[in-house]
């Protein structure tokens, strides 16, 4: 997994409350391989493209000023709904490195972590401020520092954020979680032995 330490990139405001993962990538694209040519087009597909494949002009990602954005500033409950990790694959395919929102769907939040995308929970009024600044100055930059746990807006104002130490450690080091857990093999084996005594009725 790609590590996340510090990053600075253009921000894009997505003003959709409860933006569910069906919006981020519609279900009919879940069968597609993230390595496929054109996978990036599935991001917000039905909000971005009309039935004939033409761009819907007033959707923000179709505005040339936001096309290269790599940080999303979102609304409450970003990534709620379906557990589809494809909603993260498609962010990666579009070069998104961080999503800043007042709150996240819990499963999507965890999924982001597995692909080096930093999910940042920030106070709602601060997200509102950042989105407004990005509307006012398209293409403005957002800076993130995971070690220091700060987000810095286009005006240079910094905001502190909280992150679980486990998640922080994993992202900073680009940790392979399965590899790490396999290192606990002896602990798991010990547990299974105790658990078999406790839950003997469960064995087939």
């Amino acid at each position, binding site marked *: 997994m790609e590590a996340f330490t510090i990053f600075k990139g253009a921000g894009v405001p997505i003003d959709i409350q409860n933006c569910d993962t069906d919006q981020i990538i519609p279900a009919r694209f879940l069968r597609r391989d993230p390595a496929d040519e054109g996978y990036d087009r599935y991001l917000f597909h039905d909000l971005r493209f009309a039935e004939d494949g033409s761009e819907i002009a007033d959707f923000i990602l179709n505005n040339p000023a936001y096309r290269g954005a790599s940080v999303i500033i979102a609304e409450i409950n970003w990534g709620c709904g379906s557990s589809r990790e494809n909603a993260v694959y498609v962010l990666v395919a579009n070069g998104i490195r961080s999503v800043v929102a007042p709150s996240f769907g819990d*499963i999507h939040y965890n999924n982001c972590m597995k692909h080096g995308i930093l999910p940042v929970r920030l106070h709602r009024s601060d997200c509102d401020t950042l989105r407004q600044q990005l509307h006012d100055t398209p293409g403005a930059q957002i800076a993130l520092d995971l070690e220091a746990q700060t987000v810095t807006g286009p005006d240079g104002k910094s905001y502190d954020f909280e992150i*679980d130490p486990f998640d922080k450690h994993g992202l900073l080091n680009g940790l392979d979680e399965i590899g790490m857990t396999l290192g606990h093999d002896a602990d798991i084996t010990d547990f*299974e032995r105790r658990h078999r005594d406790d839950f003997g009725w469960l064995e087939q």
Partner: protein
Amino acid sequence: MTGKTLFEKIWKRHIVTKRHGQTLLYIDRHLCHDGSFGAFNRLRQRGLGMRRPDQTFMTPDHYTPTHTASLDDLEDPRAREIAAAVEVNAKEFGVTAFPWGDRRQGIVHVVGPEQGITLPGLTMVCGDSHTSTHGALGCIAFGIGSSEVSHVLATQTLWQKTPKTMRITIDGKLGFGVTAKDVILAIIRKISAFGGTGHAIEYAGSAIRDLSMEGRLTICNMPIEAGSRFGMVAPDETTFSYIEGRPFAPKGEKWEEALTFWRTLPSDDDAAFDVEVLLGGDAIAPMVTWGNSPQDAVQVTERLPDPDSETDAERKAAMAAAYDYMDLKPGMAVTDIRPDRVFIGACTNSRIEDLRSAAAVAKGRKAVIPAMVVPGSGLVRAQAEAEGLDRIFTDAGFDWRLAGCSMCVGMNGDTLKPGERSASTSNRNFRGRQGPASRTHLVSPAMAAAAAVTGSFTDVRKLMEGS
């Protein structure tokens, strides 16, 4: 010392170790479906084996067609490949599977309880956000992403942050014609689409105790629509009598041993929850959603809410966008909304009791709009046919289908046409959920059947009085 909650009692028995504040949680049983193919591929690519194939179970549901018994009828070769991968992966890794064509095949959240795979006191996961459904039997069951599925396949564990706890108590008695689906929609309306985020929900109170197992499965299906990954009901005699004798449930001495343990699981009287929510069961009426979030729910007797009465500017804008997408107007009566199509099914409402309740409304009437009934499993379908429910539906002009996720998820061929409006017993009314530009209204099976035979949302209690 204060008592422990149902959730805490199970969680603490599954802690393998801790690191940087997170818990390595042992997973007792793992459910997979056709959409889990990516997780198996990842395992293969890394040359990893499975730790507990004996506690992993798999059945195809998301991609499977419901109009044909032959996978060859699938137009997209990629969909065919994915549906067939269940058997390939099950054989290669030694997993128990109920593949396409097996009469036990069905929606994974229907099959688990039905087969006795789901049991009180367990930790269970599945790569699907509606996995909390299984919590209805008094276990910790939650939805995970595909990387986490690979992690469980390889290690039988997951790194987890301990969630906070929330108890939702529904006292009183549900009124005539009010179902578990109406209860969960009323709850989500009250606590919002994110009110449960970061929390494990336990449902309690007399109205919950009185629910059948099927009803409990319905309310435990939808906490994710309120932001929570977990929904649970304490196991009791209803639970035990539901489980006893099911294929994968313990038998004989093991059954007695399990029962003794399961009886210790309910939350202690002095257990403390981080959040308490109270709702009066008597006040709940049949519900219908009007917008694009499950929190946009109103009683069938109400008029649609006015965005101008909202003080929050963003909420106001969200409501206006939903009205625009759904082609509805504030202030209109729910009963004036006319769906084009009816879908009865999904992991929310495709069990035998759901079908009975819809059939009771359909009996002797005729559908005036296209309606389909999709049983949750091959066994539910067989049971319904044994009871003659299929005849009631087909006589009323409803389409009687094979088991699968069907029109809940818009990825298996069962979809609405652009602009079409459904009365649907599924769990999500998101934009485009049932196909591009589709419009979904969530309701109970009885309310869906009432919409089918009247052509508009109708207070089903009136039809029931007359029938």
